[in-house]
């Protein structure tokens, strides 16, 4: 409790408060730009954190993550083009409301539902993360290996075309983590004689290339689609009548979103979609859904923001990211020399409580900003692509170059831009590659340590109950989707 109060006291530091405000503003602004998702926003702005202290960096990333998710809903409602995939469900009723001249009402409800969902999940994060960390505190290398492999296996269900493609992408991510000097033997691997690769592939250029530059190429393919903005009346707090109508949807979706967020690999987009379906199921006005039902805005918005706090639970407590954005945040922390996991709760609790307090503050800040400046954010969403995307390229270049002042890293970002574009084209999701890259080193280190403990006897894992359960879960998560697909195919024929 003392540490948490200390975390809240951090917000009294004008520098940290400024960082949180900047993170929130940038998050909403960039999140509101169509095509720029929360992961792209975080990857693009990650280099800025290199210049910050770890506490400021973590506060910046926490507030950015929360706000980018909310920013996506502004364009979903006004332009019918979600700024973030997690706001896709918001378009179903948000845009019809805007088309009926109720954009201000929809945005007001979106801001309030998002804030309630976000705050609810941060409270769960504050309670659940330390408990989970306490459980994991006794983990040794075998348990950690099993946990990391389980996290990797869950990439099978992260978007994309098929579980197999996701697993291939995840394995390539792990392979990327093997580039550089092997820490146990000192042998260089896959460096191709390049000095830049000796210490391994840097996260930042890879992330910028995969998310920002590949998206630029995707946008080049889609250029020409004209966006029209719905007329925006004054954004206002929801009326009591609207709140009475939506409270059930908001709380149900907040709970669902937090729970789905905690599960590895299931992020805000899934949470919002499930919440939309459930909100409709429990609504008294089912026939209004799709035509501009305010509950159809409240439910998904509460859920996608609740998933943000939920996804941070395994990321902070176990060091296992559950989504692309949390993997990027984890990469940002590793760049800062901080490796989240159970030990962090004892060794540097102030960092964790900086996350909690910054996320709480960001949720309150975007509520205020969302209500006060929605018109401005809506304008930002209409920046023409011929001006926006070249600027994204320039920011990507400087972002890749700045941390180490290396032109080689700009080349790496460009190469991964091409790789990312091809991956998307052939139905490979990007998130598994990033999760593999972030977890790769942990998997290798813990595997080698475990084999040393077991005297190179692979069956040693069977003597560790927790590792055994986790490996069994891994096997189940790999086999279950195949069995499900097979039974569906049989049922169809």
């Amino acid at each position: 409790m003392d540490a948490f109060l200390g975390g809240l006291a951090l917000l009294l530091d004008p520098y940290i408060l400024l960082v949180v405000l900047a993170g929130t503003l940038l998050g909403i602004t960039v999140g509101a730009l169509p095509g720029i998702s929360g992961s792209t926003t975080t990857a693009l702005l990650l280099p800025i954190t290199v210049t910050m202290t770890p506490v400021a960096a973590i506060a910046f990333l926490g507030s950015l993550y929360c706000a980018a998710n909310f920013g996506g809903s502004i364009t979903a409602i006004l332009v019918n083009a979600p700024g973030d995939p997690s706001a896709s469900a918001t378009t179903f009723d948000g845009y019809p409301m805007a088309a009926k001249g109720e954009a201000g009402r929809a945005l007001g409800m979106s801001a309030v539902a998002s804030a309630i969902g976000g705050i609810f999940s941060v409270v769960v994060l504050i309670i659940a993360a330390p408990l989970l960390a306490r459980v994991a505190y006794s983990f040794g290398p075998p348990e950690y290996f099993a946990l990391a492999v389980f996290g990797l296996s869950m990439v099978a269900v992260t978007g994309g075309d098929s579980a197999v493609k996701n697993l291939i992408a995840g394995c390539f991510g792990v392979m990327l983590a093997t580039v550089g000097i092997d820490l146990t033997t000192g042998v260089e691997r896959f460096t191709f004689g390049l000095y830049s690769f000796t210490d391994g592939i840097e996260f930042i250029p890879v992330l910028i290339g995969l998310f920002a530059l590949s998206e630029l190429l995707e946008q080049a393919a889609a250029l020409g689609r004209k966006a029209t903005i719905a007329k925006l009346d004054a954004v206002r707090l929801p009326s009591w009548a609207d709140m009475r109508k939506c409270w059930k949807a908001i709380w149900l979706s907040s709970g669902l979103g937090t729970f789905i967020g905690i599960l590895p690999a299931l992020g805000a987009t899934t949470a919002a979609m499930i919440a939309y379906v459930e909100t409709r199921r429990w609504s008294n006005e089912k026939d209004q859904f799709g035509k501009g039902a305010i509950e159809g805005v409240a439910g998904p918005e509460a859920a996608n923001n609740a998933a943000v706090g939920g996804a941070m639970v395994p990321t902070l407590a176990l060091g296992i990211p559950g989504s692309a954005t949390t993997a990027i945040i984890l990469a940002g922390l590793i760049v800062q020399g901080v490796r989240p996991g159970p030990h962090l709760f004892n060794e540097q609790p102030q960092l964790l409580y900086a996350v909690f307090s910054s996320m709480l503050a960001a949720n309150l800040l975007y509520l205020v900003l969302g209500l006060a400046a929605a018109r401005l954010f809506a304008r930002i969403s209409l920046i023409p692509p011929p001006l926006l995307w070249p600027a994204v390229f320039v920011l990507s270049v400087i972002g890749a170059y700045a941390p180490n002042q290396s032109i080689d890293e700009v080349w790496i970002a460009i190469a991964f831009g091409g790789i990312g574009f091809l991956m998307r084209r052939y139905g490979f999701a990007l998130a598994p590659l990033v999760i593999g890259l972030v977890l790769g080193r942990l998997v290798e280190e813990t595997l080698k340590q475990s084999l040393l403990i077991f005297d190179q006897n692979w069956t040693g894992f069977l003597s560790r109950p927790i590792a055994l359960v986790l490996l069994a879960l891994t096997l189940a998560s790999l086999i279950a989707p195949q069995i499900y697909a097979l039974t569906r195919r049989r049922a169809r024929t």
Partner: protein
Amino acid sequence: MSRSANLVGATTAAAAAVVLFALTFTFEQMPEGLTQGLGAELFPRLVLGAILVLSILLAMSPEQDAEPLPQVPPLVYASAASFAVFMALVWAIGMLAAMFAYLLGMGLLWGERRPVVLLASSGLVTLAVWAVFAHTFRIPLPHGHLLAVAAF
């Protein structure tokens, strides 16, 4: 996604895995006593083996959607090529000037035809990059070689 897309993906992944697997034989060999059977090549080979197995599974997976992949529009190739042009410009005229030129060129390429808007936005973005990174964070940006060559 068509079977051919799966086949392309599987073949590319398998080919990359085979090449990388072959590369593991070029790793420096350390004495057995030092590696204790856990050489630098062990883990990459395990992962590459998994990729090979998964690639075979992918190649065998049934067709989900018969629609062929849409053609890549020429603008995508042009935009990808512009990345390389930008890097050549950085070498020639330095990063800030290259950024300004790139913003103008890409804006034109993507269809912006209002010169004042294009010039103003390119100038503003370049100025912002200079103000934040070069001025505030004091990050030295690469200078061009062309001026140096001309001076020589």
